[in-house]
């Protein structure tokens, strides 16, 4: 499933924000990013999927934080300091929701033209194929473009939850 907005890129190209997770660089549509924050202790949500780090207070809003390492079954790296929460503003079809993505660190922003986005061969990354919308090469460096909506689809979160409780 590919995000329609991303197919529909104009000639000016599109801006992506990249971050580091377990040594690899990933990028997401910058228009979905609201802000970046340093991670601080979140509040545990009982019986939630293990990749839900918890909920945090974003200026009075209570938002869930998704631990991307746990989301993709990567081991925790306790040597990491100053992990970053990317706060995303996602329209899930009915409303806008704020959600945090806990990643190792923030990298930079890129302008990428549509023609420079190549389809990804399967099993290219430690991340499941369904979350990847394509690859792009910048300065001889491979960038994996992620589908944010797919990553945070509430359907998937709810599904995980019922499995857990039952």
């Amino acid at each position, binding site marked *: 499933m590919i995000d329609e907005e991303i197919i529909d890129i104009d000639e000016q190209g599109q801006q992506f924000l990249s971050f580091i997770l377990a040594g690899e660089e990933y990028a997401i549509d910058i228009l979905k990013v609201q802000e970046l924050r340093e991670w601080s*202790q*979140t*509040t*545990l*949500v*009982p*019986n*939630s999927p293990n990749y839900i780090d*918890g*909920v*945090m*207070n974003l*200026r*009075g*809003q*209570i*938002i*869930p934080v998704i631990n991307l390492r746990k989301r993709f079954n990567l081991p925790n790296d306790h040597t990491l300091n100053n992990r970053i929460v990317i706060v995303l503003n996602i329209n899930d079809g009915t409303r806008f*929701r*704020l*959600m945090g993505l806990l990643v190792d660190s923030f990298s930079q922003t890129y302008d990428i033209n549509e023609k420079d986005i190549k389809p990804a061969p399967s099993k290219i990354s430690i991340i499941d194929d369904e979350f990847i919308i394509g690859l792009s090469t910048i300065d001889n460096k491979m960038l994996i473009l992620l589908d944010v909506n797919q990553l945070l689809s*509430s359907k998937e*979160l*709810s599904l995980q*939850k019922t499995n857990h*409780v*039952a």
Partner: protein
Amino acid sequence: MSIDLSQFIPTFLDESFEGLALMESSLLNIEQGDVDIINAIFRTAHSIKGGAGTFGFVHVTDFTHEVETLLDEMRDGRRDINKDDTNLLLQSIDCIKLLIEAARDGIECDNLNVVNVKKALEKTLKIESITNSNMVENTIEPKGVGQWAINFKPHLDMLKTGNDAINIINALTDLGTVTQTIDHTNIPELSSLNGEDCYLSWQLTLNSNCARSDIDEIFEWVEDECDLVITFVETSNNAINNITEQPTNSDIQTATEINNKSLPNVKATPEIATNNTSMSVFESASIRVGIDKVDTLMNRVGELVITQAMLKQIGSDLLNHDHQLAAKLIDGLAQLESNTRELQEDVMRIRMLPVSFVFNRFPRMVYDISAKLNKKIELKFSGENTEIDKTVMEKIGDPLIHLVRNSLDHGIETPQERITMGKPETGLVHLKAYHQGGYIIIDIIDDGRGLNSAVIKQKALEKGLITNEQELSEQDINELIFTPGFSTSQEINDLSGRGVGMDVVRRNIESLGGHVTVASISGQGSTFSVSLPLTLAILDGQLIKVANETYIVPLISIVESAQINNKQVKAVAGRSSVYLFREEYIPIYSIKRLFSLPQTAEKYEEEMIVIVENNGQKYALLVDELLDQQQFVLKNLDTNYMAVDGIAGATILGNGNVALIIDIRGVIHLNQFIKDDELDVVDYTAEGAA
């Protein structure tokens, strides 16, 4: 010039529905024959007709026109106010409501009732009412050919209401010959001229033998959008210039008063308590604000409270460091605290509405149901100005309707029964609202037959809800009507027995954080007492600590908390534990296990016990530590995430961290999901003995 009228439709709908509600409550009082009430109803009907006309809701306009005609005849005294007409008008209101809803949704209203009621209206209108023997037109109005001087000065924005002066003048021409002088001195420079404004005014002279009311009718739709002076001038002269400008409102007021005086047989109006309810709607000046704006304001203030608490903490930390200005800062912060608190209360008050908004639907219901059941029932309100949070109010309507219906249906006896019992023929249902310790209490009191505990007990036994061995007080038995699976109604009728029992009423009220109880004296009546929190947005809670996580238990569910006494923990059948507390065995729930929390250092382990109550059943929650009691601003988890079992919501603590609020009912539900083998026995007994 085109204006997008559709932007005004929501306002029209709101106002119309409010107007209809007002018409309804006024109509129920009409039997007292107060002409002011008829006038009020007429005005409301008229504005609905006008509004519907503007938006092109033809069916609404047509229908309301008939209603208006009938009301007009009543108003002029050409028709007596009788019960049949009142009933017809009440039905008409229902039809107008249906028609407006259909128009709003852009569909044809296919309700047969509408057609029937319209036919009935037309039929009624054809029958000349001959009740007023000396029917009077306005006696002061001149008859015969005369000259009318009309000074018509539209307000700048009259055109925006869809009214055009040319139509009005054309309509006047139908009455007689019109000469007009147009005053165009108010037209501004072309550069500052707004094409949608009306700058002209007219001095019209009408030669006609018409009545004043004919002219009034033409101007009726614009009376609020213009300055209007209508004077009758003697046939011969031309004293138009002497007319002083005068706002129409008072002019029309006078006309109404004259109308009233000309009615010879207006009955004296008896003093009615319920009159105040309908009139208060007129008196309160208000503005219409979207609830989302109020909610945003609420949230903002909630943030302010949190920030203030944060600052307070910093302030007291500074004091510990002996900073020289710390004391001053603390003083300032104390002031800030009281100001924020007041601000918060004020904002909360915006959301508060008088409970009469719920009560107002009952007179009609009582009217309809008592007619259907052939009972005579008087409905009495008190404390209807007691205020309650809008969200609570929206949710309390249905449970209250159910309770009132129950009183009407099962409580109040038929007039014959009442007379044989030596009671007054008319039964009384009294709705009483008042404040009590942070709660609003709504009592539904009837003087009917009361609950029959013998029947209830028999029924509960049949249904296996109780056993013969159980010793129950009369109160206990009466409370059984709230148990799921209990309904005393012999046959299902469309009033009480709709398959929804009292258990649903109790559940709905408890989901709002409230309680419902019943007290009854056989033969003398029963009292259902509903207590509700003033608001759902703020909650009193107890902070607890479990496995280093902080949670909040709503104070309303807490019965007691205590240090755990190991000797009082008993294992039941080797799989779960109960706590012996005040000679009661209470099931023990471990928050740590239910929330799958990690184990913590031994010495913090579950030392305290919090006894909570849900649905009349007590539960013991194991916690590590009890902290503060505080007020919390309730926030939903599903705004950005999703609802979580066992969690009612979240709040932000003084230190900026999020704390989750425990939902007692959810926690109990969660317990059922835990598999038997996961439920290890808390073996305090052995430990205690050692």
